[in-house]
């Protein structure tokens, strides 16, 4: 959408430019001849609208682009009183109207005075390809690429001419490539001669991705002779390369799932792994982090929307603090009476988790809350034939950063030293003057705080609801135990192993069976190594 918006802004500029060049009189006459066509858009059903769009595009005049663009985005309205069509933008209870051709402001209208012109997927598709042909010559290379991609998807032989003109004028190599691919797609859909088509197959074969494959499979079944042969060969080639990339893709998925597991489990690796508290309220700490993100985004949305892209950076410290403080409160209030009785911590933290869930439900309501992806976490990029989504990539990076940070804190700071001292020999540490109660509280706070910042990350890919924590608690315990209690590296390796194993099983066994196999794998693995992956060895201390 944001990309559409920028396109829109560009179009406005471009058109005002054109208007400026062509002179006002010309523009005036243009808009006057086009206006009836535009107003017709408001009439009839989808089939008629499609025909009317066709008529507009047939004028070949880029001045109709903003109207089409607005129609596609659902911003084109008709005024009930006189049947005039406007681009309308909601402004409180009113609509701000803009003339679709001259782009001049035309005052306001009430909610009931205008009616939206309906649009569906099919129309959007038609508009997209129409806009594509219209904007192939735009000054911004990004727009030209978008246009070429739209033409590629449309595969309309009628656009070959426009493409040829555009290709002849194109300077940018990247844009040129896309345009040629678009042209190839259109050529294969046309009745041009065989040699042209074989050349087109060649271009698509070079392109080598799923879209090309999709086209070529179509060509293979619909054509004959040499073209069919070339298409078949290209299909085989692309399929082979995609199969190889699939393995890489699976590893990536595994790492990505593993990093989610790592994030979910890493706080538990502290509270449970290091401190020995069977912390059933861990999931709720994650949930608190996610809700903190929601609150931050909500405030930003209402008061300073321009900060939205930074919302996660604001949420991170707040989530750490909120969850950490709640963690410290839980430690001081309940858990400190239970050291040395880990099973009772299970009972008490289970109770706490029920209370926290219900508290969140009472405060924020039982339904999902919307946490948006900032721009830099939306979308995907292609790496070879792999699609990597930004949010997954940043989560992997973030999980590793959190892990590294935690290792640093525990290994390199006095606090970490004290923590290790207290967990290894509480009495000795106390005798050496370490204030063990405070270390306990802070360590628990650290574990909870890290769960909180995990919640910020997980809010980007999952529901933000009171049930959020429950979904992760079992997996988190599995990861910590699988990796070996008390060993952070074990948690890292455990999470990644389980993630990758799961993702390699999933294509063969399906999601449900895959998960069952992973659980069985954990059970069997623990038989082999009853103390987890990274068990501490040594002269066994007498039990």
């Amino acid at each position: 959408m944001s990309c559409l918006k920028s396109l829109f802004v560009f179009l406005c500029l471009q058109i005002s430019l054109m208007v400026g060049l062509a002179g006002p009189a010309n523009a005036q006459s243009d808009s006057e001849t086009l206006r009836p066509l535009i107003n017709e858009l408001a009439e009839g059903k989808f089939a008629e609208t499609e025909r009317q769009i066709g008529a507009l595009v047939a004028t070949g005049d880029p001045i109709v682009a903003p109207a089409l663009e607005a129609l596609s985005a659902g911003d084109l309205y008709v005024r009930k009183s006189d049947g005039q069509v406007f681009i309308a933008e909601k402004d409180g209870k009113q609509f701000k109207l803009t003339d679709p051709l001259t782009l001049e402001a035309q005052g306001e209208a009430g909610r009931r005075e205008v009616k939206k012109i309906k649009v569906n997927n099919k129309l959007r598709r038609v508009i997209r390809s129409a806009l594509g042909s219209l904007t192939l010559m735009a000054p911004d290379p990004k727009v030209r690429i978008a246009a070429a991609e739209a033409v590629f998807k449309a595969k309309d032989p009628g656009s070959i001419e426009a493409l040829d003109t555009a290709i002849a004028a194109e300077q940018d190599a990247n844009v040129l490539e896309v345009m040629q691919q678009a042209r190839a797609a259109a050529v294969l859909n046309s009745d041009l001669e065989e040699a042209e088509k074989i050349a087109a197959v060649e271009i698509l074969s070079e392109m080598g991705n799923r879209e090309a494959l999709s086209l070529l499979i179509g060509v293979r079944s619909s054509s004959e002779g040499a073209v069919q042969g070339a298409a078949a060969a290209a299909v085989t080639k692309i399929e082979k390369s995609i199969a190889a990339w699939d393995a890489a893709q699976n590893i990536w998925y595994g790492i990505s799932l593993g990093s989610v597991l790592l994030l979910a489990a890493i706080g538990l690796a502290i509270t449970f792994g290091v401190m020995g508290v069977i912390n059933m309220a861990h999931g709720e700490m994650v949930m608190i982090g996610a809700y903190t993100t929601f609150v931050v985004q909500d405030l930003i949305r209402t008061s300073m929307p321009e900060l939205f892209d930074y919302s996660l950076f604001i949420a991170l410290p707040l989530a750490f603090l909120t969850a950490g403080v709640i963690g410290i409160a839980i430690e001081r209030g309940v858990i400190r009476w239970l050291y040395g009785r880990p099973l009772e911590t299970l009972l008490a933290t289970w109770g706490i988790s029920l209370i926290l869930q219900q508290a969140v439900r009472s405060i924020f309501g039982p339904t999902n809350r919307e946490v948006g992806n900032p721009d830099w976490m939306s979308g995907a990029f292609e790496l070879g034939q792999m699609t990597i989504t930004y949010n997954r990539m940043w989560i992997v990076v973030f999980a590793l950063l959190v892990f590294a940070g935690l290792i640093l804190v525990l290994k390199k700071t006095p606090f970490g030293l004290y923590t290790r001292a207290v967990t290894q020999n509480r009495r000795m540490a106390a005798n050496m003057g370490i204030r063990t109660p405070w270390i306990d509280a802070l360590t628990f706070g650290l574990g909870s705080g890290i769960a909180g910042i995990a919640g910020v990350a997980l809010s980007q890919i999952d529901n933000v609801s009171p049930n959020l924590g429950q979904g992760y608690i079992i997996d988190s315990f599995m990861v910590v135990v699988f990796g070996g209690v008390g060993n952070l590296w074990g948690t890292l390796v455990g999470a990644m192993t389980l993630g990758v194993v799961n993702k390699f099983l999933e294509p063969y066994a399906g999601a449900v069976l895959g998960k069952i196999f992973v659980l069985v794998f954990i059970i069997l693995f623990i038989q082999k190594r009853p103390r987890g992956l990274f068990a501490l060895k040594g002269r066994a201390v007498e039990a």
Partner: protein
Amino acid sequence: MTRATSLLYLDGVSVAFDGFKALNDLSLTIDPGEMRAIIGPNGAGKTTMMDVITGKTRPDSGEVYFSGAIDLTSEDEAAIAELGIGRKFQKPTVFESHTVWDNLELALKAPRGPFSTLFHVITGAEKTRIENLLELIRLTDKSSELAANLSHGQKQWLEIGMLLAQDPKLLLVDEPAAGMTDAETAETADLLKDIAKDHSVVVVEHDMDFVRSLDVKVTVLHEGSVLAEGSLDHVSADERVVEVYLGR
């Protein structure tokens, strides 16, 4: 001094934990009926040696034989205990939520399977045996007391009593005098000497006075292998032993 005639025979036993060599080519032989004291500084490998003999730790290499013919490295703890090797731990380990009487009853030589214990009814002979043991370890009036409520010394004695109840051929006793008063220590020494009359006993101890009062052959361990062997006077004259004990 051969495997065939020995009661316990260790030859070339090595154990390493994460690169640390707890036992390093240890060889040791105990004859039937013998009482042996084993001394050595912390980390000399005394407890690991016990672990190897009782099946808790598997050696990386080396041979461990009992009664000349039974390979202990292929047996587990329960089987080794059934063969007749009893072990008393450094830290007294009794069943704290059981009474003194129950502790002894559990240790008493009897079939060890779940179903035999499920339908087990205590016999008169067993009762007599327990009463005798109670007297021996001086806990008759504490017999219905929970083991948790005993003093440290009493726990040590209870554990020795449990050891005897098993009626083992070989007793491994780890620091029996630790944490005891002087009077208790002397009594413990007497008790052990008593026991040694009809059992083989291996005593691991730090307390030199205690070892002296036992008056038996002494083996000195250092860094996982035998440093010296002989009477206490003999080994205390050994320069290396002096260095190990005093040099650090």
